């Protein structure tokens, strides 16, 4: 590792193009320096206790640098059909092809969905203000890498007082090498939007580093669905953080099904009085899949509310490690924070870990957390079998029931397909 670090330090960090804006080059260069300075994450720290960080080091940083960062003239647009029932779609592949389509409705309302490179030129006021403001280069080594060397990436901006009734689907597909992508999500005051943030497809045993920065202004209503559907040869390291303002309602869902190693660090800062955040996740692992989820609700303002429910089922030799943190600051009064994690072990060789972490420096709070770990109950299986249902079918029915409440939190357009994906995975 030391050898590699020296090597990457030796690489000269040049502007991406001759006309790269000064502010952007400076921001990226500083991040690059931070990446090189910082050691790999300490495994004693909870965040990396269950997952070796080495496997997220890009094998050839030179290669990554060559490909990165692509300016607008370096990537191409492909034709993209807008699927029915959507107000927008943004598809990004590892070879820097973007397929983006917005509904007329979204375009008329001034919604922006463009590549981050285009955005740096066309919307510098937004990008300069927000890029790296929630997840900066001090956040961690890989976050610094991301800020320095993002290749693709998207900006989604929903202006104030804009309501979109149908979801905007963003899909990132990795290749066989290292892909570094970033989503900057800016939602204006009193706007309403539903976003599907999907990581799927691709072949080869690639590595994807992704960052999602969400800045949500006062009184906005945002539904954010994260879908992890990568093939079982791909590794994903995602850091997703939202900062939400006064009276915002953020409803997040996560569906973790694919990937070989999936490391997700999700957090939300409830920064404005009266902000609400609900998170509902489901995870189904099998084979040798490895999942490591961290969630954090950080209450920095008074009268904020968070609620989190995570359902995990692990079969085969799958591993799921989950750390759920709640922080309530000293001057954040009358907050409520709830967290529940239920785990089902579907085989003797599957493993789950669940670690609640509560840091509450205020007495005026309502807070609870709960963890359960268990196998499917024989009694329950017997009940279904006594009605003529085979053992396998009984287990499938009980498991889909286990996930049902989480499925119901998904946008309508995803519910049936996700239910079918679950069922297909349970067939294995």
């Amino acid at each position, binding site marked *: 590792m030391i050898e590699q670090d020296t090597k990457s330090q030796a690489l000269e960090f040049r502007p991406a193009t001759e006309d790269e804006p000064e502010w952007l080059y400076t921001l990226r260069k500083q991040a690059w320096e931070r990446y090189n300075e910082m050691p790999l994450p300490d495994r004693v720290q909870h965040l990396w206790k269950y997952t070796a960080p080495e496997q997220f080091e890009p094998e050839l940083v030179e290669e990554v640098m060559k490909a990165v960062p692509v300016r607008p003239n370096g990537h191409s647009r492909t034709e993209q059909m807008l699927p029915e029932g959507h107000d927008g779609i943004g598809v990004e592949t590892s070879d820097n092809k973007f397929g983006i389509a917005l509904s007329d409705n979204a375009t008329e309302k001034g919604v922006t969905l463009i590549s981050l490179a285009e955005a740096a030129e066309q919307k510098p006021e937004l990008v300069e203000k927000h890029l790296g403001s929630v997840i900066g280069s001090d956040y961690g080594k890989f976050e610094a890498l991301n800020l320095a060397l993002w290749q693709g990436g998207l900006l989604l901006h929903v202006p104030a007082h804009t309501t979109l009734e149908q979801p905007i689907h963003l899909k990132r597909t990795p290749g066989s090498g290292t892909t570094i992508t970033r989503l900057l999500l800016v939602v204006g005051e009193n706007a309403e939007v539903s976003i599907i943030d999907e990581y799927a497809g691709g072949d080869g045993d690639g590595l994807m580093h992704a960052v999602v920065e969400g800045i949500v202004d006062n009184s906005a209503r945002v539904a954010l669905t994260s879908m992890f559907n990568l093939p079982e040869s791909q590794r994903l390291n995602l850091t997703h953080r939202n900062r939400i303002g006064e009276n915002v309602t953020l409803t997040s869902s996560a569906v973790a099904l694919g990937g070989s190693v999936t490391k997700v660090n999700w957090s939300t800062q409830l920064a404005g009085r009266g902000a609400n955040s609900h998170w509902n996740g489901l995870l189904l692992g099998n084979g040798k899949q490895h999942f490591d989820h961290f969630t954090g609700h950080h209450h920095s303002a008074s009268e904020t509310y968070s609620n989190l429910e995570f359902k995990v089922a692990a079969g085969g030799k799958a591993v799921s490690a989950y750390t759920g943190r709640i922080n309530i600051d000293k001057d954040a009064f009358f907050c409520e924070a709830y967290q529940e994690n239920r785990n089902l072990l579907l085989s003797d060789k599957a493993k789950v870990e669940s670690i609640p972490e509560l840091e509450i420096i205020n007495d005026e709070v309502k807070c609870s957390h709960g963890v359960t770990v268990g196998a499917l109950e024989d009694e329950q299986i*017997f*009940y*279904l*079998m*006594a*009605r003529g249902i*085979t053992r396998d*079918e009984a287990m499938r029915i*009980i498991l889909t029931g*286990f996930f049902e409440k989480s499925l119901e939190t998904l946008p309508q357009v995803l519910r049936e397909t996700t239910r079918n994906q679950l069922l297909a995975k349970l067939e294995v």
Partner: protein
Amino acid sequence: MAGNDVLLSIKDLHVTVEGIEVVKGVSLEMKKGEKHAIMGPNGSGKSSMANALSGHPAYEITSGEVLLDGENLLEMDASERSIAGLFLAFQYPLAVPGVTVTNFLRSAIKAHRGDDPSVLRSFRKEMKEAFKLLEMDEVFASRYVNDGFSGGEKKRFEILQLAMLQPKVAILDETDSGLDIDALKVVSKGVNAAHTDDNAVLLVTHYQRILNYVSPDHVHVMMNGNLVRSGGPELAHQLEEKGYDWIKAELVA
């Protein structure tokens, strides 16, 4: 009666649970159209027998023979026993959160009759009728199975399943326990409606109360893992009057 009228034939049944023998050589025969009651004090082994017959994994049948309409029941797992025509109304029905009553019933019906479109077409209608029979509100169709049901609602739902699945032999494991008189009447009405000349019902109960509404042809008394006395309906009344101690005393003497 001819031999082929025998629906359930149990010979010298022995059952252990966690290594302890709880059923110690029960023999019983039920014919088409019959209603039998097995009565006994707590811990006599009657519920263990019901569970073992249905294929509960915690109850091991160590010896004996059980034929259901001529088929060897002991070679089948619980789901195969159900398909073969055995039904157990559970003493403690289990909740299946996230699974609606409709989906649960549809899966059971599909398992029994296949998924031919005609089966699924008649399913809704049959379910509606079953709800009416058990005097259950149709909102239950979209509720999760036994999740948050009251004791009485759970028992009604058991009998609703009995009515829909139309088994050859239904075993009712203390279906009457915990029911108020109105619920008991509704449940009994359901059992009587499901009972025909071609099937048989085995009531397992501690009390004589349900026998006022579902009148059995044969009453057996179970104690300490065995049937110690068999008779007609009058035996149930004697038990109601004198309690189980009376038989215990006779057995000792």
